[in-house]
């Protein structure tokens, strides 16, 4: 095995059952406040009765090689480490929120309880002690595949080897070079993933399942 790991994830949408175990495991593991997510699972209902199918799309930080959040940070508090993981320096972060605005995947947020930016770092604290990310460990259908891409025996390397022709990234037009790849990705599902916003409350309501959009303007502002 080479000295330096290069962590990557692959998400097999054929196997995903939309169970939310990943997103809840992540919230517990990383103490993510309500209304914010490091890991989300979007739903999409496609077709007309009775020919209807449901699609699921788990989204984590893509650990982009060309990370828009990193470029947008006014305090240079976001860095990409040698192991491929994009991390936030919470000591220097001043919670400007520019990173959240820049992220094409809605994967970064400003923690309202701590006033620092936060996002998925593949559970780096678990990697340090030889554990898998919380989402990967708990995934009942083995849809989340993780590991050191430099280690040919790692699950992610073996998955790449087997399925390389079938892999795609989310929003390739953003040219971010994500380190998270999907198998079975339908490009239009990306329309559900908000750019510049971590969580629109409406995005989890079932009436948005059949919609391919990420913005839900309030048509009845009197509600608030």
């Amino acid at each position, binding site marked *: 095995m080479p000295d330096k790991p290069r962590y990557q994830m692959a998400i097999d949408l054929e196997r995903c059952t939309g169970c939310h175990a990943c997103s809840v495991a992540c919230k517990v593991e990383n103490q993510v406040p*309500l209304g914010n997510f490091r890991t989300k699972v979007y739903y999409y209902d496609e077709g007309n009765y009775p020919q209807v199918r449901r699609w699921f799309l788990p989204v984590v930080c893509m650990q982009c090689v060309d990370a828009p959040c990193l470029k947008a940070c006014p305090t240079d508090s976001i860095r990409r480490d040698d192991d491929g993981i994009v991390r936030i320096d919470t000591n220097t972060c001043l919670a400007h929120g520019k990173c959240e605005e820049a992220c094409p995947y809605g994967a970064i947020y400003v923690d309202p309880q701590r006033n620092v930016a936060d996002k998925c770092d593949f559970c780096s604290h678990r990697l340090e002690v030889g554990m898998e990310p919380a989402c990967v460990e708990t995934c009942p259908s083995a849809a989340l595949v993780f590991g050191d891409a430099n280690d040919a025996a790692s699950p992610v390397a073996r998955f790449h080897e087997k399925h390389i022709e079938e892999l795609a990234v989310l929003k390739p037009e953003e040219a971010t070079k994500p380190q998270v790849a999907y198998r079975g990705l339908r490009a239009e599902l990306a329309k559900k993933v908000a750019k510049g916003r971590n969580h629109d*409350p409406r995005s989890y309501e*079932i009436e948005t399942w059949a919609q391919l959009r990420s913005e839900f303007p309030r048509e009845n502002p009197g509600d608030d």
Partner: protein
Amino acid sequence: MTDDTGRTPSGSRSQDTINRRQAMRIGIGAMASLGLGEMIVLRPGEIAAAECDTPPGPRPGEHGRPKVPHDYRRATQVTGVCLNCSTVCGIVGQVFDGQLVKLAGNPADPNNGATICAKGQSGVSINTYPERLLYPLRRVGRRGEGVWQRISWAEAYDEMARRIGDCLAAGTPEQVAIHYGRSRISDVIDRFMNAVGSPVVLNHRALCSLNKRAANYASIGDTDWETVDAAQTKYLLNFGSNFYEAHQGHIHFLKRVVQGRFDNGAKLVTFDVRLSNTAGRSDEWFAPFPGTEGAVALAMAHVMVDAGEYDRRFIDEWTNYPAAQLREFLRPYTPAWAAAKSGLAAADIERIALEFARSRPNCAAFTNRGSHAHYNGFNNDRAVILLNALAGSIGQPGGYCYGESERVDPAKYPPPPPLPPKPKIRTDLEDPPDFPLANLWQKMKVGELVYDYLRSGRARLRVYISYTLGSPTTWPEGRSLTVDVLRNEELIPFHICSDVVYSETAHYADLILPDATYLERWGLDTRNSYDFRPYVTLRQPMTPPPADCVSFADVLIELGKRLGPQVSKYFQFADHEAYVRHQCRHVPPGDCADGFTFLRKHGVWCDQKLPQNRGAFRRLLADHDLAGSETDAATSVIHRTGESGKREAIGVMVQGRALRGFQTPSRKFEILSPTVIKQAAKIGIDDDGLPRYVPVPSHEDLPDDRFVLVTFKWNVHTQARTAPQKYLSEIVHDNPVWINVATAGKLGIRTGDLVEITTYRPTAGPFRATGERIGSAHVRAFVTEGIHPRVLAVSNSLGHQFGGRAATAQRAGRPAGPAFDAAVLPEDSDLSDSLWWDAAHGGSGAGVNINAILPIQPAPLTGMQAWFDTVCSIKPLGIERRA
């Protein structure tokens, strides 16, 4: 008893008196702590923002409390067993400084391994919920008024012992009842009730799985729950099971179905009236009219027999019904006939039947509530199980399998002696004579009738003990009949409730006992193993219960010790831990000092040397089994006189070999059930014992303006007990009514519109078959392609009035919840500041409780609640709440 001691006879105190007390707290927020003897008012939805705790969040511009990632080098791992649904997943907890911070699956568990679901992951939040019950409370005002006084455990035990002791002294032990849901301590509950001498142990099985279990018993006798060998299968026919979200073997089954499909090339076909996640991800989804699943299955059987695509040998050797007669029985059930009943295409029924048949024997047809929670559900499920007999897939790799041991076997895991005998008396509550199949194979009872029986005087109670029971929200007519009876102090003179949060059931109690969570208590557990070897798993406290919380098992054991020598002689062991330790005496020690320690360390014990058992009916009987046996010439059933002196069937001769057979009376797969004929005759019903199709009477000639209202579960919720968990309610908190696009178009209903749903009683059946209106609910509409045009669906699990802020969707300071000690359980700023789905802040709110307007409708013979038969109407209210 006087004011000064804080002891008050229940129900004797007026609100005025209470208000004069300085110790009285209303609206509670805040309470640094509730002192012994102090009082509190708990009412639904009460928020006292002025009194709330200061949330720990930062002020603008400040860095808050830093997030410290868990340093797992400092953690202690403790194994346990999840109980956030009924699946029974082995888990491992990570404990830091006495606090449980994370859960994962136990890799040693043969079913779930290292994986658990969203509910399982959420479990840690139950322990630290700021509105958790921490102290015993005694009712002070009128019942249901919500006025409570903190008391000591000594006082609680004294009162319970006095109340139960009165029944014993009067010679009426059957006036003590326990009613529980998902307890996983039924052995301790039974022991307690047997010791007391009361048979009135009530449950919820008839609201859950009764018809499915009864259908398995009637067909193969060995089990109430099949174990489909999904990882090795080639074809799965799923009639109404949403195992991607809510099956009783959820993760165990789900992960193997995914393996079977994507690693083994299996096809999954789902029949469900609604596009569940399972249906939405199946290779094919069909939406039959509700309750016609049996018609579809019989037509498939017809196709298989007609085409000669079935296992003739299995039918001849292993069923009790000759192939020629089976062909005659199936003759009218053509695909065209089933198409007319179900609305599916005849060509699809035929095509799927042949695909299934040609995958034999590595195929399985299985069911769940979608097929069986109907008036005709028992026969629907028998028809589906029959498909496995035709495919010869029973007990085959990739087929419809069943293990031998699905419960903790007292012979292998003996509880401490002496065991109390079972009481000889009976009451209608636990043994309803109108439903002869309810208690025939196991004590499934007819839970949905308990409150009606109490109201109508068919049984009398003096002490009602509820545990893990959310009947005001989970029962049909819960908010009317259930609550009326729970509120009535003549029908239920004394109600003891053990719970973790202040639930709707607790609200109508006289004494509330703060329970330990499943992460803080003991118990041996098991499930049907998808590895086909029996195993046992240990639930143990990962952390001690906080404050005065005590596990209900320990309460019963302690109470048993206080009920006089006739009862206490059965409780001569220290506590539930000692009880479980005794149960483990035969578990091999492995790498530990003894079996109990082994289980504490590893969580699971399974004898890997045992061969896998997918179904033992073909097992040869050994010579010692056959010693002294005799074979009935007419039936080929082998009998022997057992140790009890009773003549019992032990097997059957097949092709000249003495085999174990199935545990039915004929030792064969019973297509024709003489048992059903005999039991039906007892109540004057003429049943021919065949799994024939019986239409749901209320659905015959359904007018165009009437629909069938069904309910369902989400992947992040159970029926009643997950709503207080913030990360789960964050994902699903609202439950609009699903309505088909075409139907909505005709009615002028758009997504977001408020509609009125009105429900009606059934027109036939054993209980109140009047067809009269029950009630109405106002619900938001969700217009979707994913539902049958004649079906409306509203999820259960939501619409809570109690259970704290996460359950009721209220963003505020610590509200009127039993958060009696901030020093024990600190406030959570998520609930005070970040609960974004509060309707008062623009969110969609906490949903509706649709069970309130569903009729009690037990199916004939079995008593299973026919959840999915409810006839309703819908009308738009002209209020567009959200576009």
